[in-house]
């Protein structure tokens, strides 16, 4: 396995951003973890100096256990064929971040989606309104503390006779032999078992 | 004034016959389309039941008086066109009013319905309808040139503008204008494709793009009346073309054979073709059909 170019990138990143945790995961994959306030300069650095000109994806992960949201950027370099994954963690109680739409215009749409699904507020993006959901007034639905079964049961008429339905997480846990953590159990219990 | 009861009879039953023939042709078209697409197809009476169903709708909506009257304009134009076209040659009953009008009159009365329809569509307020009308009128400007060239060539050649005279001159098989003036026929039949609105010239009612365009706000009895009008108008146009190019018809069997043969040209073209954009179809009409039309005129002149 030849990791020459990946290592070169890692070195460049480390030289410029000393606090960045760089990990070359495998060929064509570099993962960088960074403080959230360093993200905008880092992204411009990656775009301007490291040739990662394409933002392929931009998403959010809910780390309920740590009380953090993790923002994940996936950047692609056409020159070196390397994907750079940039991760940062922000506060979950008051999720705020700055917009990066000046770097990649398409980020605006991603930000709108993250705002709607997780409730992250992006400073500088003025289009954070209603996006896909219409008239949503509950918790942002992709947060892990949002109970979709409960919500569905409360808002929609459920036809009786569906007894086979189970929570997917329980099933997966049972099959893989893992124990469901206590904090997660709270959200995975079926409503009728309460 | 003396009333010719045979004429009255003709005026009463011609639209009925036209409707029946037109609806049957519509059904046959659907069957033929289905067979070509390797399907079974609906029964031949399908169009008839469609129309009956539309009339039997329990509720109807309209956006104002022009939309209410639009199908009426259409069917008035269809029936008037029919009355001024001799259906059966030298017949008292089925020549109707064809001695009172001429070809140029027919060209204009045929537009009457489209104009009325366009007004109704305009009042329905649906932007799709207006887009359809815009496309339809633009396309009409396209096919009108070859058609007029063909008609002018024929009128100059035979020194008449009355259809009955034209039919009388084509008393023999080899006197048919299709053989005497083939370029005029070519130009006219290509324009006829556009006139019938089958593919590739069906951008006006493109269902997938503009929600069937002009009729998108018409339902129930209004749509039923429009379909009735279209059946009659199809028959009237086919009869007109038969009269001009194929020497008319002496009896109903000949008429049905000739009109059906003519009708199959746009239908079969339509089945195997995709759709032109508006400007493409306009350019199509201004290319070869127009050249054929000019040739037809030039041949007559020299």
């Amino acid at each position, binding site marked *: 396995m030849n990791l020459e170019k990946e290592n070169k990138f890692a070195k460049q990143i480390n030289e410029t951003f000393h606090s960045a945790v760089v990990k070359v995961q495998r060929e064509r994959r570099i993962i960088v973890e960074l403080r959230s306030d360093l993200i905008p300069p880092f992204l411009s650095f990656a775009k301007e100096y490291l040739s990662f000109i394409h933002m392929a994806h931009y998403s959010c992960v809910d780390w309920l256990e740590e009380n953090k949201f993790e923002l994940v950027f996936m950047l692609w370099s056409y020159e070196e064929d390397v994907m750079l994954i940039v991760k940062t963690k922000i506060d979950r109680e008051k999720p705020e971040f700055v917009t990066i739409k000046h770097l990649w215009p398409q980020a605006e749409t991603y930000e709108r989606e993250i705002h709607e699904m997780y409730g992250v507020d992006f400073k500088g993006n003025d289009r954070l309104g209603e996006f896909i959901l219409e008239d949503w007034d509950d918790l942002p639905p992709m947060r892990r503390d949002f109970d*979709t079964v409960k919500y569905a049961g409360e808002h929609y008429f459920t036809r009786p006779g569906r007894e086979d339905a189970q929570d997917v997480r329980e099933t997966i846990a049972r099959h893989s032999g893992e124990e469901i953590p206590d904090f997660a159990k709270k959200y995975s219990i079926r409503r009728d078992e309460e | 004034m003396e009333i010719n009861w045979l004429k009255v009879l003709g005026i009463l039953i011609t639209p009925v016959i036209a409707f029946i023939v037109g609806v049957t042709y519509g059904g046959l078209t659907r069957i033929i389309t289905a067979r070509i697409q390797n399907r079974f197809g609906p029964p031949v009476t399908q169009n008839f039941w469609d129309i009956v169903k539309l009339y039997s709708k329990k509720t109807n909506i309209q956006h104002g008086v022009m939309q209410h009257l639009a199908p009426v304009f259409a069917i008035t134009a269809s029936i008037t066109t029919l009355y001024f076209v001799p259906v059966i040659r030298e017949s008292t009953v089925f020549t109707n009013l064809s001695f009172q009008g001429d070809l140029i009159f027919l060209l204009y009365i045929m537009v009457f319905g489209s104009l009325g329809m366009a007004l109704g569509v305009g009042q329905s307020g649906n932007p799709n309808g207006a887009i359809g009308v815009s496309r339809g009128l633009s396309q009409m400007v396209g096919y009108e040139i070859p058609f007029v060239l063909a008609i002018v060539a024929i009128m100059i050649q035979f020194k008449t503008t009355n259809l009955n005279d034209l039919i009388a001159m084509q008393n023999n098989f080899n006197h048919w204008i299709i053989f005497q003036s083939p370029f005029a026929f070519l130009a006219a039949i290509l324009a006829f494709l556009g006139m019938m609105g089958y593919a590739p010239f069906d951008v006006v009612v493109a269902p997938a793009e503009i929600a069937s365009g002009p009729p998108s706000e018409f339902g129930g009895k209004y749509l039923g009346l429009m379909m009735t009008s279209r059946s009659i108008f199809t028959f009237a146009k086919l009869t007109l073309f038969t009269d001009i190019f194929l020497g008319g018809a002496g009896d109903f069997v000949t008429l049905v054979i000739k009109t059906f043969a003519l009708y199959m040209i746009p239908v079969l073209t339509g089945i195997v073709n995709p759709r032109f954009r508006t400007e493409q179809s306009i350019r199509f009409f201004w290319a070869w059909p127009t050249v054929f039309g000019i040739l037809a005129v030039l041949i007559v002149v020299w």
Partner: protein
Amino acid sequence: MINDKYANKIVDIIQNFARKSSLWVVAYGTGCGAIEIPPTMTSRYDAERFGIRGSATPRQADVLLITGYLSTKTLKRVIRTYEQMQDPKYVIGFGSCTINGGMYWDSYNTIKALDQYLPVDVFINGCMPRPEAVISGFIKLQELIKEGKANGAQKYKENLEWYRENQRKVIKNWKMPDYNW
């Protein structure tokens, strides 16, 4: 004179036959089930045999085919489309999602039972129902029409308040024109 009762009956029979033989389906694919419509309509299964045909706008259509799950956002549009159709009009619920939510039973933004919101005449079960099933559903609808039993529009009109209450429960921002006959 013909007895009015019999005359009306004959007219009814003819009208019902016409309605049965000509079903125009409004082209509104809501969920994944819309993918089953092309094979149903084209050469392999040829639904046109039964007079079933697509129509572009609800003004011309008779049948509203709900092909699969309905998110609340789509439901609003479907209700609007249904209300723009002309009586007599029929609704066919297509696939498990319209019956009990199907695989979206716990989803936070799809409805679970269509008949709470619109009067369904025929349900077609399956995920996905094959074109044979779709056609058999249509034939069932035709039988109902012929017997004069497919009166979903009547039901909707009579129980409008009940339907409205259910619809408003799901659609929070209700800005719709009135359904006034």
